[in-house]
């Protein structure tokens, strides 16, 4: 059986012929489209390393069948920077030492982008920690991650206000 699906990935439309419906979105990105920025940690929804945005919502790509998401808009870490300019969340992770080995980092960053868009956490560090609890970091960079998310959110909110004004 061949299933053809079309996805918009980081702004570009891609049509992929799937020979097998078992392919997860994570494996599609990494193994078939060479977008290896998205990481495979547990492959079972337990770590958040595979976080991507589907239609603007952060989800675990390891527990999503690619074929179910035919027509969806996918944003991965590769699509976040604008040309040579880092996204504010990326810049904040560097500024605040939000990582050590870096394995969890793309998932943390994509999750933070989703969290900020959801707008539920505000500037409460406890809500940010809880809102980032779907992303584990074996290196324990949590303190820097929380600061980075709070800082990036300030930057993005200010940019949003300037744009509105």
């Amino acid at each position: 059986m061949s299933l053809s699906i079309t996805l918009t990935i980081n702004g570009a439309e891609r049509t992929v012929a799937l020979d097998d419906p078992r392919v997860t979105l994570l494996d599609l990105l990494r193994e078939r489209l060479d977008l290896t920025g998205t990481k495979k940690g547990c492959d079972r929804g337990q770590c958040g390393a595979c976080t991507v945005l589907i239609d603007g919502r952060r989800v675990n790509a390891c527990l999503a069948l690619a074929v179910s998401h035919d027509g969806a808009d996918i944003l991965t870490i590769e699509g976040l920077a604008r040309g040579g300019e880092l996204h504010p969340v990326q810049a904040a992770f560097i500024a605040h030492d939000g990582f050590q080995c870096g394995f969890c980092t793309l998932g943390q960053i994509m999750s933070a982008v989703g969290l900020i868009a959801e707008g539920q956490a505000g500037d409460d560090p406890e809500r940010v920690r809880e809102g980032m609890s779907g992303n584990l970091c074996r290196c324990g960079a949590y303190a820097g991650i929380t600061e980075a998310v709070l800082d990036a959110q300030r930057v993005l909110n200010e940019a949003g206000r300037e744009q509105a004004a």
Partner: protein
Amino acid sequence: MNRFDYVRPATVPEAVAAASAPGAAFLAAGTNLLDLMKGGVARPSRLIDLGRLPGLDEIESLPDGGVRIGALVRNADLAHHPEFARRFPAVAEALLSGASPQLRNAATVGGNLLQRTRCAYFYDTASACNKRAPGSGCDARGGENRLHAVLGWSEHCIATHPSDFCVPLAALDAAVEIEGAAGRREVPLEAFHRLPGDAPERESVLAPGELITAVRLPGEAAEFAAHARYVKLRERTSYAFAVVSAAAALRLDGERIAEARIALGGVALKPWRARAAEAALAGARPGADAFRRAAEAALADAKPSGDNGFKIELARRIVVRALTLAAAGTPGRVPALPASPFAPTSGAAPHA
């Protein structure tokens, strides 16, 4: 993962018809089913993807003041729906205490109800498990069973049902709307999941091929909104299943409790409605003595199924805590740490 046929029906009747084939399974978000398929625990020969079924993703207010929640509504969308969260705050709090933000963004209402147990022997295909392989035995008995059931278990299976969402739903008299080849029917949530008995492989009252289309809460459930909480003890602060949890909801009449609702999670193979505890509170003054009496009544029939005797006293204390928090009043917003027994009642964060 085994090979399967992939079917994407466009209507509910088509989905029901496609599910009549032996070995067929419905796929909602897949956050539980794909996990089980990766481990070889579930091996459906046909997956019926519910994702494109029309009309199942709505949250509708009903004329009686209740709400009808479509089976494909995402857990996060329900928890953050302002009107829903205001009227059914314990349900929103329970949802937000479950899994992670990413999983809640995907997971659906129907999938949450039908998620399978987290018993480690069920997940390990090398172990004996009557639920996965009927008649093979139960390696959890005499194994690692600290987190297993203390109510309603049998010699055949001592697992628990892991859902948080279902606990306040059971307390608040939710109903499950079902559609199958023989037509529509509806079942109280409290009667939806089955206790293990001698057939732990039969987990709910659904017949093969039957589809959950919606979950309904009655208007009376909103009368508890001012005093409704969910408390969930976990082995870490967040992103963990309940060791024990409780939903408590009170309707106060002056200084007395007019009506109480209590259900427990993590103690049995279904969300456990504690009616004797509710009866013990009717007409009582809210307070430590009454709450402890209710907790004793809730756990009166409990017995350890292994190394888990501690869960019985823990469950009593969680019931008392949930009732105490409910009596104090529902906070204006779900706390930063939803359902956490460590959440501050006021002031600074207690950890990190």
